[in-house]
């Protein structure tokens, strides 16, 4: 193509962009859009909660910091994709994700993790960092380098019209409901059942519970497997609307850490509050910041600057929370 034709195209494009800028600036953000974004933030937060709940539970009971939690999330997603491809059933896939993640969780607890309870956090970080390397490459070895397919079940696909005329994904609503159900279930488990009583006792005084004749090592394995199963479930749920691939657990792991730090490490209530706070901040920040910058900047630059700032927003939120409460919102010193 001769250069002259190109420059002609360039002028057309510049004109096009000018017009577009006016349309973006001219449009106010509608209330329906804002409500939809709040729902999106809630759904994102609930998903983070499923990850964070396991992390915070394991930390609260065993005092262990587990970087390999993201790998269990990946294990859940891969197990679900494999079983869904094999049987075609989404429910079986979810069951498989729970089972596989719990199984691998119990396995690493028995072989590696239990040697780390008495160690300092540095050893825990490094040993579980090593587990990430092993899990990621082993998964790639088994499933290959290409992403796997996992889809939303027929019954949950498409959208639902909510009161007020908001069209919202059925599947995302289901995730919100499952997440809230898990939150309620965990509260009941910990506050009402015998196992929960032991967990609380273990949190307060590990030697005491041993003296009471409770086999603490079985309890620890169970708690770890429970946390792993939650991570696996969230991997499978999210895998249906995202990409099931090696390394998928790492970004969400770091977000989950931000969540539990904000909420207070060891507190399920804190994990829920932190998750929803992070979910809303991230989603609304992503939408609002570019829009706010567009008020006084050229739209392309506004989008770029706004989203740069949005990607740092939750870390800024975390720094802000810790400035005032160094042990998080619901943490005890």
């Amino acid at each position, binding site marked *: 193509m001769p250069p002259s034709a190109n420059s002609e195209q360039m002028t057309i494009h510049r004109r096009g962009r000018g017009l577009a800028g006016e349309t973006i600036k001219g449009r106010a953000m509608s209330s329906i859009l804002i409500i939809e974004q709040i729902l999106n933030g809630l759904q994102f937060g609930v998903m983070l909660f499923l990850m964070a709940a396991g992390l915070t539970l394991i930390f609260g009971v065993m005092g262990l910091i587990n970087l390999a939690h993201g790998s269990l999330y990946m294990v859940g997603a891969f197990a679900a994709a494999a079983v869904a491809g094999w049987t075609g059933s989404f429910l079986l896939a979810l069951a498989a994700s729970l089972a596989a993640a719990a199984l691998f969780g119990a396995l690493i607890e028995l072989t*590696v993790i239990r040697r780390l309870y008495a160690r300092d*956090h*540095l050893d825990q970080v*490094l040993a579980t960092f*090593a587990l990430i390397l092993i899990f990621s490459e082993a998964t790639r070895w088994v499933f290959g380098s290409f992403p796997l397919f996992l889809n939303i079940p027929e019954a949950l696909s498409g959208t639902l019209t909510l009161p007020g005329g908001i069209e919202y994904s059925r599947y995302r609503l289901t995730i919100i409901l499952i997440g809230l159900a898990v939150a309620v279930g965990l509260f009941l488990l910990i506050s009402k059942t015998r196992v929960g009583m032991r967990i609380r006792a273990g949190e307060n005084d590990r030697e005491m519970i041993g003296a009471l004749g409770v086999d603490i090592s079985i309890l620890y394995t169970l708690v770890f497997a429970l946390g792993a199963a939650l991570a696996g479930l969230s991997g499978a749920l999210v895998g249906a609307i995202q990409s099931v691939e090696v390394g998928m657990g790492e970004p969400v792991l770091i977000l989950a850490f931000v969540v539990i730090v904000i909420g207070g490490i060891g507190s399920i209530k804190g994990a829920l509050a932190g998750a929803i706070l992070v979910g809303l901040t991230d989603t609304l920040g992503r939408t609002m910041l570019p829009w706010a910058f567009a008020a006084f900047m050229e739209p392309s630059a506004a989008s770029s600057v706004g989203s740069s700032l949005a990607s740092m927003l939750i870390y800024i939120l975390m720094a802000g929370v810790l400035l005032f409460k160094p042990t998080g919102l619901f943490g005890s010193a």
Partner: protein
Amino acid sequence: MIRERYINFLIGALLLIVPLVALQMDEPFIITLATKAAILALAGVGLNLALGQGGLVSFGHAAYFGIGGYAMGILASHAQDYAPLMEVPFVIEGTNLMPVIWLVAIVASALAALLIGALSLRTSGVYFIMVTLAFGQMFYYFAISWPAYGGEDGLSIYVRNQFPGVNTLDPIQFFGICFVVLMAVLFLVNRLNKSPFGLALNGAHQNEERALTVGINVYRLRLVAFVISGAITGLAGALFADLNRFVSPTMFSWHTSGEIMVFIILGGVARLFGPVAGAAVYILLEHMLGGISEYWQIYLGLILLFVVLFAKGGIVGGLARREVRHDG
């Protein structure tokens, strides 16, 4: 103690001899690997001061490593394009002189460490680990989306920066620079560890309450250690960028933070030469395992796991046959 001194000497000598032998055998790539080991060791020495002596488990030292790298990248790219860094209110030119770049890298990363440390040190334990990790991520995302200096693409410098009297493009001479810097920093850190400051830092690590009761301002003590630690890692970042003639946001990623920690645990926590041994072995492993299998990271993970679980004290600790002090 005396035994460890011999081991330290041995490690230092090995790091020096290997590239010299490689020079004789005309294997320049081995010299490059040794240079990389020396630079990463320096990053580890920086972290070891906070982590080993001070007990401050920072999972975000990639931030300082990256800042050091970008100090080099930004200054050198301006020098390369003959475009001043800023003109108002006064002109600041880029530079391709290593000593100037090092100074800027040290000051910039020290400032970042001061800011991050001042906030992070309000927390402790696992909060501290997570907060430093999050600050590291913040820098990572900033570097990716900041368009002025290449964003995700990073910055390429076509010619390695200058050091008066040395041909830095010659691999062995550049290795010499890095080796001397590493030894000089080790010497200073050793002096620091034995000074009242170092003893107080270690004391506060062993028993914070006792340190408080004897009237030590633990927060300020740790902050100073954290800043020095960040500055050393920043210097390593500047050298690493010069080794590659390239910087990119990867230097800020949390994997980098993890790797710097790995050097320390492999070599031996709180051992003066621990990071040196750790970085050298890590690079050796990476180089050799890569030849065995496409899935070499599995083996790396297994070895790392073994060292953490069963070989406390790492290489230096194992050779010195003395259990390293350990407490949470």
